[in-house]
């Protein structure tokens, strides 16, 4: 066991997989000699060689396409897209190709590609360094979508994703790289060293995809969320003295419908929360599933807590970010309504 922040945990996962499996290669912009703009691949090129930790041209479409070709040729590429905001040039190769190769070739060809990319706001990154596009990928059949909320899960989920023979888009909430964040920018930053999930096994271990984590058991309301919002929701509920059951999905596709539904059946109230914009965001799918599965158990309408339906505005970060106040308003509504 060692203390790791999320970057170190991700680095450890890739280090271990490069070590264990000669078919694993890393690729991306600035990830090699430099170790990545967030340092996630630091030291790995020196350790495993330039041909296994590969600097690439600045062409997300080319990165995904060549990763697919490598995957078809027996490698397990882990491609980094420097910011999730920059994944769109690779969108066609992800949606039209990566997601469909197994299907259209009746299982004869497949590309076990993992795409890592930092997402989310709270870092003064403005509209092109703060996006949360995960919802779009959950609509694409054939891709798994993962988002960890802490170092322990990040490492175990990344190892599982790399070993998975299906393509995985792995979103990393960059605001959580250095510590949990409860949505209050005025509080001093808390490091992972002071958080139990910052205790990470140095060896090989997996966290399964499709298994949500009940971060906190509670009786009053179920808060279904993932990524940064796990901490914001917990803090808001605690501040309001609401006995909330907080569910960290960890993987959006596949989705742990059982844990979600048994929780809502128990509490009868539900909030879904994410940083991403609201309209047609993943929260809509979560709300829909809960409504379909737990309609008769609901004592109040399900509430959504999300970012606003605008680009992420540089100067209004904290008015935009779905912080504790926004969760609190939803909690009030969902608890009061009868």
């Amino acid at each position, binding site marked *: 066991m060692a203390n790791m922040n999320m970057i170190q945990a991700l680095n450890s996962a890739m280090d271990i997989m490069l070590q264990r499996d000669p078919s694993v290669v890393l690729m991306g912009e600035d990830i090699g000699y430099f170790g990545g703009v967030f340092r996630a691949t630091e030291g790995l090129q020196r350790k495993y060689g330039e041909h296994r930790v590969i600097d690439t041209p600045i062409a997300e479409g080319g990165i995904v396409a*060549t990763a697919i070709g490598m995957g078809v040729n027996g490698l397990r590429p882990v491609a980094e897209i420097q910011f999730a905001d920059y994944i769109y040039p690779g969108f066609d190769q992800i949606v039209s190709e990566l997601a469909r190769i197994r299907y259209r070739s009746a299982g004869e060809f497949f590309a076990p590609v993992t795409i890592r990319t930092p997402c989310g706001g709270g870092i003064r990154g403005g509209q092109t360094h703060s996006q949360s596009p995960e919802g779009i990928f959950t609509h694409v059949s054939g891709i798994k979508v993962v988002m960890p909320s802490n170092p322990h899960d990040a490492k175990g989920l990344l190892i599982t994703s790399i070993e998975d023979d299906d393509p995985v888009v792995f979103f990393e909430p960059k605001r959580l790289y250095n510590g949990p964040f409860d949505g209050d920018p005025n509080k001093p930053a808390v490091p992972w060293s002071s958080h139990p999930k910052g205790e990470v096994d140095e060896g090989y271990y997996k966290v399964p995809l499709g298994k949500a984590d009940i971060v906190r058991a509670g009786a009053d309301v179920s808060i279904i969320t993932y990524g940064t919002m796990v901490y914001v929701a917990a803090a808001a509920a605690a501040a309001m003295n609401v006995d909330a059951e907080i569910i960290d999905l960890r993987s959006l596709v596949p989705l742990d419908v059982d844990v979600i539904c048994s929780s809502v059946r128990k509490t009868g109230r539900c909030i879904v929360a994410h940083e991403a914009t609201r309209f047609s965001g993943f929260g809509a799918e979560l709300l829909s599933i809960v409504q379909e599965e737990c309609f008769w158990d609901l004592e109040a309408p399900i509430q959504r807590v999300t970012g606003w339906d605008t680009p992420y505005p540089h100067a209004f970060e904290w008015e935009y970010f779905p912080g504790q106040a926004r969760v609190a308003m939803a909690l009030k509504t969902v608890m009061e309504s009868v």
Partner: protein
Amino acid sequence: MGMNKHSRLHLPSPPARPGEAPDFGYVDLSAAGAVPRPDINARARDIVSLSLDLVRVLDDAGEAVGPWNPHLDPSELQIGLRHMLLTRLFDDRMQRNQRAGKISFYIRSLGEEAVSVAQCMALRPGDMLFPSYRNQGLQIARGIPLVDLMCQLLSNTRDMCKGRQLPVMYHSKPGNIFSISGNLATQFPQAVGWAMAAAIKGEDHLAASWIGEGSSAEADFHHALLFASVYQAPVILNVVNNQWAISTFQGYAGGEQRSFAARGPGYGIAGIRVDGNDFLAIYAVTTWAAERARTGAGPTLIELVTYRAAAHSTSDDPARYRAKNDHEHWPLGDPILRLKQHLIGLGEWSEARHQAMTAELEALVASSWKQATSFGTMSEGPRLDSDLMFEDVFKEMPAHLQRQRDLMRAEKSGLEGARSETTGAEET
């Protein structure tokens, strides 16, 4: 619309629209044998002229001339002729089958048979092919049974795609032929990635990919050339310039200002332009490029200059946008006739043998079709189990797809119920 008069926008125009006389004067030709053959490890920057000239081996008399003559054994040439002829006869029959409603869609490669056949023969079985939808010659030259191809066209119980792909979107894992995509050009950079992996693993297989000149406008063409150049990947990137992209003339893909092969040197990779209807020239150029790739001399961009003699597909009617029978004016002739003439000149072939082979191959196509239809047709016989629709989306079927599969089953069985209710409704 004052704009009309004053517009300064340049717009390329094709050689001939319906009713006009085709003028192929825009095609830069070199005489057979005229283009020198550089050393296989020449640097891209030192052989730029190859991307502007046109490598040709067969002259008008059908003789093989010049430094690019691959000096193939006649038996090899006969095999090439056979593959090309089979490709054409297969296309003929499938086209008629589509017209007869026996398959839903088809794409012919009429006039372009030499491209796929000669290139496939110049490569090794371990080399990975990333084709477009107009490379059926690759499938045939790699020995994929016609029956397998036909079953795919029929989406029947032996369909290699399990009913999931449009006709002609073949693949063959054992044949090292990648799954064909409906999305243009996506395979081009994938082939480069495959080749990069071969290099990373220290294997000496290469990858080859094909796109049309129209598809070279897609971003993935750029991705392929760039990554191939940066990593000097062992890959052969082929642009089949058959002059048309559905109704769009090659000028709209940039062919008016410069050859497609010339893009290669721009990215620092070798570019070479070859007579796409000259079996020997294609074979020689591909061998040269393959040797470059295998010896670490880098990737090659090959432009194959040919003509799409038929419609784009069974959904297309070229009479709407180009001159009728314009392909008869195509300066580079027909690839099958040219190789046939060459073989006859060598005393290694005859009209009689050609007729015999034609008859034999027509019979092969016919018997294969008979066999293929025994595994199901669009209207009769066994059908694929619709449960297959839910498989292979992921390696294991997740819960939500199992559930949807069950709903689909219920829906199918429920249909009857719904129908009777309909009648009920009508009675009221």
